[in-house]
């Protein structure tokens, strides 16, 4: 047990910090504005976790993400407004409906690969956006959907104050992170990553690539749908712009800043990006230019994102100490660069014949 704790100490420290900071933030937050930024950031982070599963773990660059976010938001909003459904019914229904649509979309789009998949999912995102915008009688079109109710109280728990809404979203974020962490550290996560690494090799090993892509897509859509539903009852107004590709690209940026295929990445990236966005308010419409520049720099120089690069650094440092302990760290810079490649020379030969 102790060794388990030791091995995962960064993880436990991470979770501890998240929990403590997350809980005390509303108490110490200097103003209420920060609280709204954090709440919205958490909602976006949940959607980015969904995207991470598809883009990060499965390696499929899906650009329909905001479409699913909008679908979840509108479904929940409409169910509450038009059918008077309770939030606690509307939210899971929105998530399930988003999931079902995603599976249908996946069945079509996973027949393609590479650029074709990217373009196809971009188109699907655009179609969802157009349906939302043009189906005036249902969605209110460009005028949007106004007056979506707050989440219904659970017993004595009400969600009228900013603080309570913040905590509600925070709980959903924690659930999302827990699920993503479980996926990531299980055989399922390994399966997804193997598909990202090489579909050909994965299928040769007996892994059903199509099924696993669909499964990942469905899980991702489920959480994105939840994020949408939370957004609907938090902002209480929906316009078709929440389903445009602009938002998809922002999600993608958040993911790249934080680090794809990591459990902490989506949250870290979304929070960093939210802080930057707030401090760039003065730049107005030039914000996207700055973001664009950041995207180029990240992809070019820090492909692992904040979390990925930190992890690489950690590996390097441990490797350095291990080699120093073992006494075979090359002394000078560049010394024995070929030796640095840990080969299996004649040493391995005895093994084959030995057994």
């Amino acid at each position: 047990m102790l060794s388990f704790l030791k091995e995962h100490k960064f993880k436990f420290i991470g979770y501890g910090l998240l929990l403590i900071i997350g809980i005390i933030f509303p108490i110490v937050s200097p103003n209420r504005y920060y609280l709204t930024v954090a709440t919205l950031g958490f909602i976006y982070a949940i959607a980015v976790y969904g995207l991470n599963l598809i883009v990060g773990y499965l390696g499929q660059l899906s650009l329909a993400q905001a479409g699913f976010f909008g679908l979840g938001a509108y479904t929940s909003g409409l169910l509450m407004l038009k059918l008077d459904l309770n939030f606690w019914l509307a939210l899971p229904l929105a998530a399930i409906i988003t999931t079902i649509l995603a599976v249908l979309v996946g069945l079509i789009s996973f027949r393609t690969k590479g650029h074709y998949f990217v373009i196809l999912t971009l188109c699907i995102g655009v179609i969802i956006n157009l349906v939302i915008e043009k189906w005036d009688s249902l969605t209110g079109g460009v005028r949007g959907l106004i007056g979506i109710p707050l989440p219904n109280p659970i017993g004595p728990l009400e969600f009228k104050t900013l603080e309570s809404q913040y905590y509600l979203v925070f709980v959903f974020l924690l659930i999302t992170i827990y699920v993503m962490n479980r996926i990531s550290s299980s055989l399922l996560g390994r399966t997804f990553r193997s598909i990202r690494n090489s579909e050909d090799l994965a299928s040769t090993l007996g892994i059903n690539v199509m099924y696993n892509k669909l499964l990942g897509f469905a899980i991702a859509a489920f959480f994105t749908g939840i994020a949408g539903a939370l957004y609907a009852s938090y902002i209480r107004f929906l316009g078709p712009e929440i389903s445009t590709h602009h938002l998809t690209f922002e999600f993608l940026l958040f993911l790249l800043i934080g680090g794809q295929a990591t459990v902490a990445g989506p949250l870290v990236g979304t929070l960093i990006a939210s802080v930057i966005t707030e401090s760039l308010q003065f730049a107005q419409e030039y914000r996207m230019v700055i973001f664009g520049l950041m995207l180029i720099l990240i992809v070019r120089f820090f492909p692992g994102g904040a979390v990925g690069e930190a992890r690489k650094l950690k590996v390097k440092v441990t490797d350095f100490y291990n080699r120093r302990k073992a006494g075979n760290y090359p002394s000078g810079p560049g010394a024995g660069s070929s030796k640095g490649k840990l080969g299996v020379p004649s040493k391995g030969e005895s093994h084959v014949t030995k057994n």
Partner: protein
Amino acid sequence: MLLKTEHLTKNFGGLTALNKVDFEINEGELVAIIGPNGAGKSTFFNVISGFYRPSSGTIKFMGKEITNLETHNFARLGIGRTFQTTHLFTDSTVLDNLIIGYRSKTKMGFFDAIFYSPRSRREENMCREKAEEILDFIGLLEFKNYPVANISQEAAKRLAIGLALVTEPRLLLLDEPAAGINHGETTNLANLIKKIQQSGITVCLIEHKMKMVMNLAEKIMVLNYGTKIAEGTPKEVSENERVIEAYLGGVEHA
């Protein structure tokens, strides 16, 4: 009979890479496929491992027709393979490569993962144990925590074989396992292949290194321009007129 192909044909546009090939592999055999470059050897592997669909003809495995199954089902039925260019999961460690190789033998799904069910724990242990067993078998156990990018080419080749072995195949297809490694390493590899056969796995091998083929194989099929031009024991094949012709007087025998 373990595997049987009938009139197996594969066209790439106008090119017939494989032309009506009839071939049988019996359980427990060690067979080899030889032929000049571009003869269709790899294509034959790609078709019988479900990687490509044949243009026509049938494949039977353990008496059942499997011609139109999806790729992953070939592996599940017991056909394991390596690729001519070493294919590994380059992002991960030696051990992690083999762990995922055992995934098709496990059943845990999404809910097992999120609730950390007993089944998911049991299967994760199973995968780890199987991976270590194979690492021991291929002689890479002490390198288990190395990133794949940091092991030598020869080790990578053995790992690729290990990756095929971890799926517990009945039939193992090895595409030029000895390409690009030196003489001593080739001997080791031949020993490993022999050991695989002795453990009860049927092996089919594509190889240009004639000495190795002649020593190992019990039966050889020779392909040329996608057509089977000869089949028989190493001795029969090496004395076959058409084979000698195809190899331009047998320069490659040296």
